[in-house]
């Protein structure tokens, strides 16, 4: 522990210091990508029927008539102050999109991650424990097939079976229109808002709407965890301290459950962070398919409207979230696992 303190600190500092050039590159990359696109962003977003004078006027107001390097400087300055821009087509600030629609995305991805962890842990642990048995082969195959299934196809099947044929669950939106109209907004996260109000009817409605999209997204990403947890369990069961525990006469059950599993789970934390990018990508598809009003769904709509400013803002925020979350998770992993030293 004594040796770990200063080195962990140094690791933390370099890790944080590296964020700045990374964010800078990220911002520049997105800015350049959006500027090399042909055509004026204003006329692209507003369609072909707007008179040139109006387009020029709006372009001037939004600063698109300035030289590119001035736009770039303005853009960086705005982002530094936390202003990610305003959409062209409906003049919403990207910040408010993040707050309102981001809450929906957070709700979906949180529960999806929960499903993924439960599926991944159960199947992964059992497969690793009974390596090379038929159970293991079945579990691995399940993991591979599930990972090979596109989120949107699993979603389609879920809608078909549970929504249309069995008619158990709703297949689109975040809640029924009546619930939405009657609920008060506290956090924009409907699940939490319903609990705050003690509105159990609304909560039930929200949960019903959540089940299909969250399970769909969660099961697909559970495939990644199955593979990872299985390998970790196998590796841990080969460690010397497991052998030592067995040699001390501790029964196999206790060796596996108390000594091996816990240690096998630590590296999973790191991967949860890496999977965040994948999960957010999957959320774009899930939200589009289930008409879930999250950021991914908004991005899809703005892409359809060719609103470059909105796309730029949303893409940058997605990137920032992944960068920051990966740092937090790296620190958490370093903190929890004494073996991780930097």
């Amino acid at each position, binding site marked *: 522990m004594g040796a770990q303190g200063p080195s962990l600190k140094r690791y933390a500092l370099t890790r944080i210091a590296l964020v700045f050039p990374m964010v800078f590159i990220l911002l520049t990359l997105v800015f350049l990508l959006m500027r090399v696109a042909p055509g004026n962003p204003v006329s692209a977003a507003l369609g072909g029927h707007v008179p040139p004078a109006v387009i020029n006027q709006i372009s001037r107001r939004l600063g698109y008539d300035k030289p590119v390097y001035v736009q770039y400087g303005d853009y960086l300055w705005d982002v530094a102050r936390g202003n990610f821009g305003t959409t062209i087509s409906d003049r919403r600030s990207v910040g408010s999109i993040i707050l309102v629609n981001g809450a929906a995305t957070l709700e979906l991805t949180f529960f999806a991650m929960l499903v993924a962890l439960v599926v991944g842990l159960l199947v992964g642990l059992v497969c690793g424990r009974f390596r090379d048995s038929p159970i293991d082969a079945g579990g691995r195959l399940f993991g591979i097939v599930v990972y090979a299934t*596109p989120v*949107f196809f699993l979603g*389609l099947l879920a809608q078909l079976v549970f929504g249309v044929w069995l008619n158990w669950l709703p297949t689109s939106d975040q809640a029924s229109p009546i619930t939405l109209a009657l609920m008060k907004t506290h956090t924009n996260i409907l699940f939490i808002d319903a609990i705050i109000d003690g509105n159990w009817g609304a909560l039930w409605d929200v949960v019903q709407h959540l089940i299909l999209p969250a399970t769909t997204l969660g099961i697909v990403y559970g495939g990644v965890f199955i593979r990872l947890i299985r390998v970790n369990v196998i590796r841990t069961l080969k460690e010397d301290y497991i052998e030592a525990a067995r040699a001390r006469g501790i029964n196999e059950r206790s060796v596996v459950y108390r000594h091996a599993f816990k240690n096998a789970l630590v590296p999973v934390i790191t991967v949860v962070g890496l999977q965040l*990018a994948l999960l957010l990508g999957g959320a774009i598809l899930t939200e589009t398919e289930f008409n879930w009003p999250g950021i991914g769904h908004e991005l899809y709509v703005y*892409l359809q409207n060719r609103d470059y400013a909105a796309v730029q803002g949303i893409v940058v925020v997605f990137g920032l979230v992944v960068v920051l979350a990966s740092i937090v998770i790296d620190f958490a992993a370093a903190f929890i696992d004494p073996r991780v030293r930097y």
Partner: protein
Amino acid sequence: MAAVSAATRLHRRTLGIRRAFAPIAEARGFARGMLWTGAGLTLFFVVLAIFAPLISPYGFDQYEVGTHRFAQLAHPSHAHLFGTTVQSTDVLSRIVWGAQTELEVVALALAFGLVIGVPLGLFSGYFGGPLDRGSVLFMDAMFAFPPLLLAIVIAFLLGSSVNSGVLVAAIAITITYVPQYFRVVRNHVISVREEPYVEAARALGARPVTILRRYVFFNVVQNVPVIATLNAADAVLTLTALGFLGYGVQPTQGAEWGYDVSRAVSDAASGIWWTGTFPGLAIVLLVTGLTLLGEGLNETINPVLRRRVFTKVDFGAPSLEPSSEILEP
């Protein structure tokens, strides 16, 4: 003399090939099953793609024969084994032609990705210095984007200026996978760079390019087939996701399974299952095939994971057991 050396060379070459494929022949158990199932599934789709004009009953956007227009959303039947879509096209034909689209895009994307990512990783890892640090930082920044998001943005931006949907999709997918090849190759080069045989070559005065080509490249490139196959599986998923969102290959340019599934979402609401289920299953089968092939290759080629069949060595001591008993480690 020349004849002898040619024969020796041939022998040496076949020996090399045989040695390279030896792990595949020796694979056993789950790895063997994965390898062959994966190879079979992949081959099936390759055959579909190559012989699409012969196999497919109709064209990918054909909705009539002569003057007879196909029924809309017809149930699977003898005339249309997988039914028809809302535009009266034959679902089976779209799947067969779709195999061609998917594999074309994936092959292009893999080729681009390897051509860009592998040399970059080699040079960056071998020479190090500020160039290396810069490119690592750049690639890490790219890594921060969800791959699908990056692909969507690229496809969105290129879509209006590049005419070929296949090319647009291939470029979009390439850009998302270059950082991966770069990372794997670079990290491997860094460990290989310090190996005694590389140092020996350096001591002999070999030029850096020669060292890279003759010593480093072949040691590093062994991992590439595994990554490439697994990436091919991922690339199919990205391509179909692009298609689902309406980017990449456009409906007039070719059949694409992801696009077909997106059109089927509205059909599903009225209980029509065949327009989405069959193209979706095609995606699952192709991706599963590629993944099994990649994982199988990984377990047979990668010596750390490899579980081979060992022949028990008998040191001459009289034994009651047959000496060629097979032991699983």
